[in-house]
């Protein structure tokens, strides 16, 4: 039996679509995984496919016949829904729960007969839970409940089963038990649509994957085409890594894990080590862009660090672009900030101390020069391809107020350069990490503040 959905749209409230143009097809003995972040519309999709909700637009076809033209009990003999494990209001026995799968096979005034009990018992045997037959369902563990729900689907005798997060709240052993059963049933011709938060289970068990984001289909197709780092990272807004082996020259993915941002403290010889690392990164020709987020207290030498990095990178023959914004000192007092174009060394005054600062207030107030900011944006907007890009620095103006060097944010968002280095103050570190979770954080505060060297 084939289930096919074309261009499904659904909204609980007009103007707030939950499903936008979703299409999919499931053939017999296929397992389709629906992945996507919380609230992306997976459960709504399942409730449309099961006939509980009618989509506002689009069609759902069961062997070519419109799902909503089929009588409810006929439909329920073809498509079964295995909901997330829940606790019913009453403590039905396991057998009673499984027996409820017989509902679409019984008339309004019928109660289950001997044959129905036999089918229920066989279904329980298929999931190897016969020993729990007379036990209250409410006393079972989460894994056992999920298996009972599958048994109910078997008693329903439907060739298509929709499962809503069968792997939620289950320990690895129980997930294994449930999903191995799914794989086994799939081998016997049952097709499954499984909504899940586990890309790893999709990697192990799926034939096809639908990746959803904000109610829309981000990607749909074969496992190897969908479970890739760029697609998963986009879907989950998280830097995802696909880890695997290489088997006779063919990469075999084994696991999907998020990359943790590493957070390290700057030590005196770290620049040396970083330089070595950089050289190694470039030498290996690694494709994925690297981002270093440099942070540290005011005066801790962030700009100096970046300047040093640029010099040493040049020393090993790397091309460099971007900007530096070092402080300008007069008579030991910080009086302004320059903006330097790293490509050619040209510089302009970015900010000076605001005139008429009231005495007794020591915090410097900076007056930014709009023309220099425009100049900086032009530099950052026209960066030639280089090995290393340094952006010193992005402040509250850029992160919080949508002003200043907006092109700097864009350059890093686009990840167009192999290695990028961005400077932010500690108060903005969390903004930066949220925006670029893949970044490696360097805290240079450990060094004595010798910014005027």
């Amino acid at each position, binding site marked *: 039996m084939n289930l096919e959905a074309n261009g499904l749209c659904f909204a609980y409230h007009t103007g707030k679509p939950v499903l936008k143009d979703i299409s999919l097809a499931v053939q017999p003995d296929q397992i389709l995984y629906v992945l996507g972040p919380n609230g992306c519309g997976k459960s709504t999709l399942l409730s449309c496919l099961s006939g509980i909700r009618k989509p506002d637009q689009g069609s759902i076809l069961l062997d070519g016949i419109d799902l909503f033209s089929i009588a409810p009990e006929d439909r329920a003999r073809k498509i079964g829904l295995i909901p997330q494990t829940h606790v*019913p209001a*009453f403590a039905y026995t396991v057998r009673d729960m499984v027996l409820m799968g017989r*509902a679409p096979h019984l008339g309004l005034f019928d109660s289950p007969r001997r044959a129905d009990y036999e089918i229920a018992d066989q279904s329980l045997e298929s999931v190897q839970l016969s020993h729990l037959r007379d036990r209250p369902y409410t*006393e079972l563990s989460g894994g056992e409940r999920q298996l009972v729900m599958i048994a109910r689907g078997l008693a329903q005798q439907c060739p298509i089963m929709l499962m809503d997060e069968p792997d939620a709240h289950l320990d690895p052993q129980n997930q294994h038990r449930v999903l191995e059963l799914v794989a086994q049933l799939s081998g016997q011709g049952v097709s499954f649509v499984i909504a899940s938060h586990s890309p790893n289970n999709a990697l192990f068990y799926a034939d096809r994957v639908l990746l959803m984001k904000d109610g829309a289909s981000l990607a749909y197709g074969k496992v190897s085409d969908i479970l890739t780092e760029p697609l998963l990272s986009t879907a989950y807004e998280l830097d995802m890594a696909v880890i695997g082996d290489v088997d006779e020259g063919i990469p075999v993915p084994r696991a999907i894990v998020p990359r943790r941002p590493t957070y390290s403290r700057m030590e005196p010889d770290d620049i040396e080590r970083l330089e070595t690392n950089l050289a190694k990164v470039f030498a290996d020709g690694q494709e994925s862009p690297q981002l270093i987020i440099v942070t540290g207290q005011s005066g801790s030498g962030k700009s100096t660090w970046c300047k040093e990095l640029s010099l040493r990178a040049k020393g090993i023959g790397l091309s460099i672009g971007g900007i530096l914004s070092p402080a300008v000192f007069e008579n030991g007092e910080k009086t302004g900030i320059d903006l330097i174009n790293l490509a050619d060394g040209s510089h302009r005054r970015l900010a000076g101390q605001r005139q008429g600062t009231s005495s007794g207030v020591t915090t410097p107030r900076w007056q930014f020069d709009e023309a220099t900011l425009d100049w900086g944006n032009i530099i950052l907007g026209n960066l030639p391809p280089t090995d290393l890009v340094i952006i010193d620095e992005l402040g509250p103006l850029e992160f919080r107020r949508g002003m200043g060097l907006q092109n700097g944010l864009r350059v890093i968002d686009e990840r167009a350069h192999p290695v990028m280095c961005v400077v932010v103050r500690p108060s903005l570190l969390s903004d930066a990490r949220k925006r670029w979770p893949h970044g490696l954080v360097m805290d240079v505060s450990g060094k004595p503040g010798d910014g005027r060297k």
Partner: protein
Amino acid sequence: MTHKKAAPAAHLQTLAYIILLALPLLLMLVALTLGRYPISLSDVVRIFLSLVDRSFAVGISDTAYNLVVRVRLPRILVALLIGASLGITGAGFQGIFKNPLVDSNILGVTSGAGFGAALALLLSAEPWQVQISAFVFGLIAVALAFVGSRLYRTAPMIVLTLMGILIGSFFMSLTSLMKTIADPLDTLPAITFWLLGGLTGITWRDVPWLAVITLAGSFYLLLTRWRFNILSLGDEEATALGVNPNRLKIAMVVFSTLMTAAAVAAGGVIGWVGLVIPHAGRILVGPDHKRLLPASLSLGASFLLVIDNISRIALPGEVPLGVLTGLIGVPLLIILLFRNRTGWQ
């Protein structure tokens, strides 16, 4: 995972189920013998048989015959019918509302009927007029709650519950208003006693229509009883299992409302039966509605008959039924809740 406690043995539940179903008939025979004028069980049986064959009545006094057939039997039948009605509708409502703490008054039928009766008594109506007024206002209350709930398109069940409670409170306020303007020497005691429930004035005339409504409603509920399991899973799961939850619920609510209104019209406001009986039923036969509904019907009938007999015989003067069901039902419910929590979570 290990399970500390084994489930109650299935065959014990089956035995309890069979005994339960026969219980009302046994209690009825016993109840016929009880009263200020004792009549032996064999005489009661012979009086019954004499309805078929006159020769069995030989040696039985006219007093005994009249007491059994004309006085005790209608009252006992009405007690059985009302109890059955409250028990089975209580179990049904708990199933479709997925809530073991509701009974058939959840939609305001009892409060509406109470007002109808109070209004009729205030207007010094005949007893049969009081009954009809109670019955009609019971239906009006539920109809109002139902219409009110349709104003919202989403979450109809929770809104229906809310409307039921609101309409019920509204009619209770109206009843209180009736009481304040009633004659304190004559009408007020009548209203008060009616609201507390009782079967004192029951005659054969009350039996047929109560029996028809109760039996017809019970017949429908018993036919569809297994579907209550499905409904108790919630609307979405029921739909996924091919069941149309709304159609089934509306039919169930209509039958239950008719039954409850008829029961209240005949016997006044008798609380607690619809709440306590389904709990006792779950403990005895388990939560499966296939057995729970017949068991609640049987248990409700038996319970109310016993209570009415206590009211009729054991206590000096007649303690109102609604008072006794509360005095006995509430402690019973507390004991059941503490002793056995497996019937529901």
